[in-house]
């Protein structure tokens, strides 16, 4: 690649740039609307410039690709010469793609890490100067950080079982981990039936079916009824005192521990 413009200061996109070209420019994006940012990015590009950015800037990258009618490579998590590993259908398919144009737009996965052994000095980062949009106006922005996300929208779900005794313990042990991760809180059938948790929090065949990026099952044995509602989660963590609990059979990571010791430690170390 001849020249590359890197958007934002994410490690993933900068590592991608290090693996693909010798020189690249990095611009930080001020707070503005997508159309205004894309216009400013286009003004920084010339005939030979490609663009890369982290996947959270996907909508801006796609707009730039559309304006210039360039190919957009998404979910990029590997590079080898002029081929990249990219994804489609929400990560269900990985493709190796050879880029045959002089320039393209790359949306880089947040887990991208450089394979280069020698550290390349980062180029100077300059702030992109952006003229405000004439067609898009920001009316308001309200933080939702302190509200826990609804179960169906959460990237991370932490679920508790009956071993949490009462609703006070449920909140005491799960709450800190949930808030550290910006997670939603969920419960097994056992916890709901014994009145520890609300039925709106129920995950399982008779409750909600969820498939978050990360599902942490705490003190849950792993009955089919519960597993049916969470088995499609991308990464499953099980924490249980009983080493024979069946939840460990479907978990990516299992920890045999008393939740009353493990959860406070987890909250502290996250």
């Amino acid at each position, binding site marked *: 690649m001849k020249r590359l413009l890197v958007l934002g200061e994410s490690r993933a996109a900068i590592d991608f740039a290090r693996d693909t070209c010798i020189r690249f420019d990095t611009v930080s994006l001020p707070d503005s*609307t*997508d*159309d205004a940012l894309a216009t400013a990015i286009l003004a920084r590009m010339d005939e030979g410039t490609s663009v890369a950015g982290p996947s959270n800037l*996907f*909508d801006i990258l*796609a*707009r730039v*690709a*559309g*304006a210039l*009618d360039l*190919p*957009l*490579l*998404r979910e990029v998590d590997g590079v080898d010469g002029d*081929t990249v590993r990219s*994804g489609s*259908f929400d*990560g*269900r*398919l*990985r*493709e*190796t793609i*050879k880029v045959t*144009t002089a320039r*393209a737009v790359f949306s880089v996965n*947040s*887990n991208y890490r450089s394979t280069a052994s020698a550290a390349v000095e980062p180029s100077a980062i300059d702030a992109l100067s952006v003229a405000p*949009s004439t*067609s*898009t*106006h*920001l*009316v*308001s*922005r*309200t*933080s*939702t*950080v302190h509200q826990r996300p609804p179960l169906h*929208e959460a990237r*991370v779900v932490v679920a508790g079982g009956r071993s949490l005794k009462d609703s006070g313990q449920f909140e005491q042990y799960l709450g800190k981990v949930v808030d550290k*991760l*910006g997670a939603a809180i969920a419960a097994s059938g056992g916890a709901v039936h014994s009145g520890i948790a609300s039925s709106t929090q129920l995950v399982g065949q008779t409750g909600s079916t969820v498939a978050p*990026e*990360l599902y942490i099952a705490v003190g849950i044995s792993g009955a089919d009824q519960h597993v049916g509602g969470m088995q*499609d989660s991308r*990464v*499953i963590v099980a924490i249980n005192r009983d080493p024979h609990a069946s939840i460990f059979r479907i*978990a*990516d*990571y*299992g*920890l*045999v*521990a008393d939740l009353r010791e493990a959860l406070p*430690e*987890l909250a502290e*170390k996250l």
Partner: protein
Amino acid sequence: MSAASKLAYDVFPLMVNNLNEGERSMKIIVLVRQIPDPDRPIRVDANGHVDIVRWIANPVDEVAVDRAVELDTEVIAVSTDEACLLSAMARGAGRGYLVDAVDDRALAKALVEIARRETPDLILMGDGEAGPRLAGALGMAQATGAANLDLVDGGVRVTRKLPGSLEVLELNMPAVVTLHRSLSVPKLISLYAIVDARDKPIERLTVAPPESGIQVIGAEAVPKTRIGRMVESVDELVHALREEARVI
């Protein structure tokens, strides 16, 4: 408010709101794409040929059709698939365009052509590449990840759902709005509506495919496998989640 009009307002709030606005003056184009059925596997054979066992209409796109119809405007559906188009017209779209497109880039090209013919006020669809790509090609305002949208004087007011915040934007029309992917439960459609949809006009449109500039040389389906490893400590767990699974 009388009991009867209260009932009417509850059941048909948008109809009541729009009673005095006369003829449908606005035009919305809605894109309905196909996605691989999330409950069926994607297979790749030894020759690298990708086999999608079953395609379904993207439910977020179908919600976009529902929302456009609720706004009581002229709704035109666009799809690469005739069944998706019929279902969109059963939801209330008045007519449809059936287009040829191999990917989102070609789809955006086809939509540019349709938008030039139809001069819509709004182009609506679910999340993904096509929406912002189209907005960039047409130089229109864009709002992605919309949890809600309402028509306001000369424009559209969109509530965007962002990680950790809600943002309200007002866009001048014409504009491209994509819906947040959590809006994935379209309305049920009746059999009568499906039968009626067969009488609605469909126009076929073929757009020359763009010079692709990329060449797929290999593909693999990502299997759902579990790592299945026991960790000894909370430290090891946090490390694995950060460095191995890269999920936190």
